[in-house]
């Protein structure tokens, strides 16, 4: 059941990315190109997704436990620090350069295998790099 939920969630996510135009890096780049030929589509994607998720959070508050697991495991950190802001800013640079964030990149592995794989392999290398520096700083 739990596994089915993972697969179903991933498939819905991938389908949403495909119909929304978010698997087109040039369109995502267009959203970030505010000073140029701005394309507001991404704002509608975020709007639709946030709307549904806001309802889901309302339901979540009334549920003692999720359907297929024993408890909710949600981020509880409240600290806003340089790691959060700097990490997000770094991610933004990558997003702006390639027009890709992790979801569309992974989703494109079948439909646009070569460029998506170049991005995803590099992304994994970046994650490994973080893991190594994290180990060193502790």
């Amino acid at each position, binding site marked *: 059941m739990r596994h089915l939920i993972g697969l179903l969630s991933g498939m819905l996510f991938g389908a949403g990315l495909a119909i929304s135009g978010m698997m087109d890096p040039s369109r995502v780049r267009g959203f970030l190109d505010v000073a140029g030929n701005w394309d507001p589509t991404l704002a509608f994607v975020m709007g*639709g997704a946030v709307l*549904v998720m806001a309802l889901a959070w309302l339901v979540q508050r009334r549920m003692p436990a999720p359907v297929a697991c024993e408890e909710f495991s949600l981020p509880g950190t409240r600290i806003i620090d340089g790691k959060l802001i700097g990490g997000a800013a770094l991610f933004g640079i990558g997003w702006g350069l390639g027009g890709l964030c992790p979801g569309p990149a992974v989703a494109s592995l079948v439909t646009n295998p070569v460029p998506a794989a170049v991005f995803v392999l590099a992304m994994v290398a970046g994650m490994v790099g973080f893991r190594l520096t994290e180990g060193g700083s502790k």
Partner: protein
Amino acid sequence: MLSELFPHAQPLHGFIGGILIGLAGAVMLLGAGRIAGVSGLAARTLGLASGAPRMLAALFIVGLPIGALIMTTALGGIESRFPPSYAVLAVAGLITGFGTRLGSGCTSGHGVCGLSRLSPRSIVATGSFIASGMVTVALVNALGGGW
């Protein structure tokens, strides 16, 4: 009016896709009690982070291209233009991988799940990556590297 101002925009397709993405997040939250954040679940799948049960994370990640392929086929293909340079893709991927781990999330985790939860951390992170993405695109354009 929107279509006159922004002829390339696809607000309806965007909104429908957004609803599907929101449903994906809702299924993960209410079903498994977790955040549907792609960077975190990808790192978890590869054993690079703690968090969700590994099989749950892996099946979510595998589901992404399956769902995308089904929808793409149903639509008879989708438009998709990637950056023309593999070097740009590789650098962008590297920065994205490192930055999303350092900042604990990406567009899905912070931008969709966190914003809708009104998480102060996610609001700050989303503002940060959108701002830096906009600055990056403006700089690349100014340097003649637009695509």
